[in-house]
């Protein structure tokens, strides 16, 4: 239990301390992720024997918050902790001259906490909550430099596209909870029949959103507007992995129909985004498309019925892609941008960094004995062994070729030109990059023990899978190095450059309607506010009117009455002339009146 707590609480406390104390963000961040890494290691050691430790916190009745560390979740947790640790180390150097370090490191650590929560979650509610949090953290981090042109729009669109797919997760989770009566994930995996199929398809939708599968792949390209450490951590190893993690964890439950759909979606994505990557002009966007492609391969593995292969590829990809991004970041600092034309020759200027970059690129392409070879091997083997091999194998092989092609192209561009003077050394960035490259290289050695740990056996496909894979990889690399993409892709090139947009793409289907609704709501709100103010004004004017009536009307009437009385009094005053004869005349008149009344008595009595 304690390693689990450490894994979650260390980054959380570090984030809170950074925001509260507003000083030493780098030091606090490094301490936080270091402790988190220690916790993850301890956790894995703790469950190595096959057991599981869990933490249960009360939340809703019958639906407590469960955090569980099985071998699977502990491995994933370790992956997250490792990548985040070295990315933070790299970010210390990358963000050295940025004035908003506090916000950056704080938000980054919050993301790490949320991701660990997602990975270690034991029930659907926690998973949903963590899912939302990582999406929100991604929005904040993509839009980190929000005063730059286009960044805010990119962050909004990334958020909107992924959100539109999260609906699948919500409905799927509630279907599962409803079908099995509890929110604990392991229990809900026992669902069968139609609820399982429906849930499986809905979870696929959610995975398509988060892992940037076709047709929702565009947001990942846009997300490259954020700082490179963010791209390295979120958009290669962790956030986009959430979709694949979801499918890997629920794999026991998925029925055949859902698996076929997953495999097809993954395969198509792998090919299409591979083409997009080949046609890209920007290095980071190329790497983003490559990420979508690799996750497509993972989905192919899941669809082929071998989630373990997907898991191995995920782990390998995490180390590989993050190191590629970190290398791209170094070149970005050198050339103040990631446009491939600007980066021409950047690799030659930094041989060390370029060596690391090249090593990871080869690992991605699938060259032995690097990690990528073994994981891609496993994926192709699984595809060969699956019932839908006729669809999956060609797609997987095409994806492998494309992987080699675009990586070859990138390497070619970076190595072009002559040797130029050595720029300033970058210790932090080099350190972070170096460790991840080493991991990318040697991770294959750990695959055996991993399979043992997870009590799973990979399908042995003899020599066919490795042979196919190696051929595809080498041919791809050669094509990429030697042939320009325009000639290679022919008529598809222009369309691929625009990201294979159909009918205006996601912009038309998701972004514009959502933003239009938001504007309409704002107008409605403003109208309501004005209406309420107007109502208030009416009441105020009623009050004023009442006051005016009171002052002019009632007061006027009363004071007028007073004035009339005074006037009448002053007029009556004239009767009091002081003359005796007048008084006597009045007396006589009064007496006459009285006598008349008395004499007329017979008339009225």
């Amino acid at each position: 239990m304690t390693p689990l707590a450490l894994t979650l609480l260390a980054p959380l406390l570090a984030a809170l301390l950074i925001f509260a104390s507003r000083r030493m963000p780098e030091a606090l961040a490094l301490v936080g992720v270091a402790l988190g890494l220690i916790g993850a290691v301890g956790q894995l050691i703790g469950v190595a024997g096959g057991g599981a430790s869990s933490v249960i916190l009360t939340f809703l009745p019958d639906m407590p918050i469960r955090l569980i560390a099985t071998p699977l979740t502990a491995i994933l947790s370790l992956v997250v902790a490792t990548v985040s640790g070295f990315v933070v180390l790299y970010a210390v150097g990358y963000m050295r001259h940025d004035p908003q370090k506090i916000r950056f490191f704080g938000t980054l650590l919050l993301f790490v906490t949320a991701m660990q929560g997602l990975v270690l979650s034991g029930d659907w509610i926690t998973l949903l909550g963590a899912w939302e949090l990582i999406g929100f953290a991604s929005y904040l981090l993509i839009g980190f430099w929000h005063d730059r042109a286009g960044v805010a729009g990119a962050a909004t669109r990334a958020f909107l596209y992924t959100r539109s797919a999260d609906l699948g997760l919500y409905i799927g989770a509630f279907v599962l909870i409803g079908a099995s009566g509890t929110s604990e994930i392991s229990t809900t995996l026992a669902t069968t029949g139609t609820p399982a199929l429906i849930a499986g398809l809905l979870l696929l939708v959610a995975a398509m959103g988060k892992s940037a599968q076709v047709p929702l792949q565009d947001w990942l390209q846009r997300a490259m507007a954020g700082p490179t450490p963010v791209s390295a951590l979120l958009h290669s190893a962790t956030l986009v992995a959430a979709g694949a993690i979801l499918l890997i964890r629920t794999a026991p439950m998925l029925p055949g129909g859902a698996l076929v759909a997953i495999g097809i979606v993954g395969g198509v994505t792998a090919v299409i985004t591979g083409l997009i990557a080949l046609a890209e002009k920007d290095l980071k966007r190329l790497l983003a498309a490559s990420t979508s492609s690799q996750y497509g391969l993972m989905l192919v593995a899941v669809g082929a019925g071998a989630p373990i292969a997907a898991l191995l590829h995920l782990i390998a990809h995490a180390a590989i892609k993050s190191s590629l991004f970190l290398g791209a970041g170094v070149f970005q600092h050198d050339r103040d941008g990631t446009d491939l034309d600007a980066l021409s020759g950047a690799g030659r200027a930094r041989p060390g960094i370029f060596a690391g970059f090249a090593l990871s690129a080869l690992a991605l392409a699938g060259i032995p004995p690097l990690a990528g070879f073994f994981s891609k091997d496993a994926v192709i083997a699984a595809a060969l062994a699956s019932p839908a091999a006729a669809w999956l194998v060609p797609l997987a092989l095409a994806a492998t070729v494309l992987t080699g092609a675009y990586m070859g192209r990138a390497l070619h561009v970076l190595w072009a030109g002559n040797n130029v003077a050595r720029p300033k050394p970058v210790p932090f960035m080099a350190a972070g990059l170096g460790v991840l490259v080493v991991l990318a290289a040697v991770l294959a050695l750990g695959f055996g023990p991993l399979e043992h740990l997870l009590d799973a056996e990979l399908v042995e496909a003899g020599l066919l899978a490795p042979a196919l894979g190696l051929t595809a990889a080498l041919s791809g690399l050669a094509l990429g190095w030697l042939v320009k993409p325009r000639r290679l892709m022919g008529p598809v090139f222009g369309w691929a450059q625009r990201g294979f947009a159909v009918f205006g793409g996601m912009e038309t289907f998701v972004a514009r309607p959502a933003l239009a609704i938001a504007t309409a709501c704002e107008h409605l709100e403003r109208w309501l506010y004005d209406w309420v103010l107007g109502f208030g004004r009416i009441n105020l004017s009623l009050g004023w009117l009442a006051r005016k009536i009171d002052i002019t009307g009632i007061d006027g009437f009363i004071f007028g009455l007073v004035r009339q009385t005074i006037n009448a009094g002053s007029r009556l005053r004239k009767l009091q002339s002081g003359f005796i004869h007048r008084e006597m005349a009045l007396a006589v008149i009064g007496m006459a009146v009285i006598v008349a009344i008395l004499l007329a008595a017979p008339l009225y009595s």
Partner: protein
Amino acid sequence: MIVELSVALGIGAGLFGVGLYGALSQTNLVMIIMGVELILAAALVNLVAFWRYLHPDAMSGQMFFLIVMTVMAVEMTVGFGIAIARFRSRGSVEMEEARELKG
């Protein structure tokens, strides 16, 4: 219709009218008192006429007469006393100048 009574009452009415005119129109206090005398005389004439022609047995008529006579005497007495006081303080008893009670 008793002729004598009518005549007597008519005389009384005439005295009353003259006395009223005088009381209201004179400026001098003494002249006003004279007017009041005439009015009271008219009352006396009426009293005696009624006594004589309608109820000669009832002496209450003559009693009333005595009371009115008393009133006449008293009124004259007090009136002249006031006239003396006024004359002393102001030098005349003209009612035109007596405006002190003007409101």
